[in-house]
């Protein structure tokens, strides 16, 4: 089906699919980045520096949710005369991250295989 014929609909569909695609990837990225301890703001900066910008209003609640799932540990500590909550990957989080990365690589390989066997003209 040709979706390029409707310029009004296409960006909406793309945004929605992009959001869906990013959602799972962000969790993997956050877990991986938190192998090194960070507090919310520096974590966001670190992710952005790696090319993965993420909104504060998405990241900060996500950190708390991952902590509730015991994938992260956190502690309040003073830094630069301010109390900050530092997060770090927990041992359970490390196990999950390894599993997620295996899944990620599996999906990546599968998609690449599919793309290689399909019409190469589809790849921009």
């Amino acid at each position, binding site marked *: 089906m040709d979706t390029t014929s409707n310029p009004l609909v296409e960006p909406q569909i793309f945004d929605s699919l992009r959001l869906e695609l990013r959602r799972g990837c962000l969790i993997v990225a956050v877990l991986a980045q938190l192998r090194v301890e960070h*507090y*919310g*703001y*520096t974590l*966001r*900066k670190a992710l952005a520096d790696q090319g993965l910008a993420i*909104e*504060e*209003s*998405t990241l*900060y*609640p996500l950190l*708390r949710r991952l902590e509730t799932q015991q994938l992260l540990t956190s502690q*309040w500590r003073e830094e630069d005369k*301010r*109390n*900050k*909550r530092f997060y770090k990957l927990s041992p359970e989080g490390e196990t999950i991250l390894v599993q997620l990365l295996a899944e990620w690589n599996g999906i990546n390989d599968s998609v690449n295989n599919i793309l290689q066997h399909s019409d190469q003209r589809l790849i921009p």
Partner: protein
Amino acid sequence: MNPTSDLLARYLQAIGDHLPAASRDDVLAELRANLQAQMDDRAEELNRPLTDAEVAGVLRDHGRPIVVAARYLPQQYLIGPAIFPYYLMTLRKAAPFALILIFLANCANILFVHTMPELIAGILRALGQLIPDLLIFAAWITVAFVIAEYVYTSNNAKPFCASWDPTKLPAIKPQIKGKSRASRIFDLIFHCLWILYVLAIPGHPFLILGPGEIALRAFPVTLAPAWQTFYVLLLVLLAFQLITKIVALNTSYDRGQAVLDLVTKLFGIATTAYLVTMKTYFVATGPSANLTMLANVNHWIGFGFRVVLLITLIDFLVEAWKLVRPSISARSLVF
């Protein structure tokens, strides 16, 4: 308190208003630290303190307080994705039955009216009451499923319909086809014969009354004059049906034909409504007639026509629903 701290404090307070007390202080302290760090970073970049407008800009980018707070709350819905398909299916399956029951209940009063305006007003009232009553029905179904969702999520249980057996799926439905051409021709011939029969009735009353016609002669009663009007209405109805059947002869069954059928049914309802309002079906032709018995006979005949009217109205609504249903998306049936 400097303006920056004041604006930040007000922002955090606004977020706090939407957070549960148990986690409020912790969330706000963390947010404060992160926002403060972001502002410090920005001030360091600019090599000067942030202006009020710049602070407001940082907060604006962070999001509306109510939206920010909502992200810290667990995902909430009245009916979750596991139960929602069953909710939708129940609404769709139960709606036609509810429609009939509600309409029947609302129509009960037309059994006891005596004049055409009262009858029309009764039917209109019943129709007007349909939508509010259907909304109430849908609300009760929704409440039942909200409770089911609550029980499901509270117990972390499988939905009540989770287990299923593929071998119990219904058999493949036969493809609905319109009437064959032969069937439509036969239908037209039968209808023409039916019209001839009806046309012959005035000259040969035994065609409709049978042996009762001889018995009727023995009593000092006869058919009321209002039957003549009914007879004309019946002929108009038959003529209209004749036209639709001729039109249908060369066309397969489609929506247009279905609409014509509905119009015919509506005409039939109007004719039956006329019968209901006649009230007097037999009249005395002599002084020896038992007027009490005659009144009873007229009453019960009238009651019978009221029941027929109700049935034809329900039939009409069901057929109208069948016609309209395919063009209504399942999503639009959800309230």
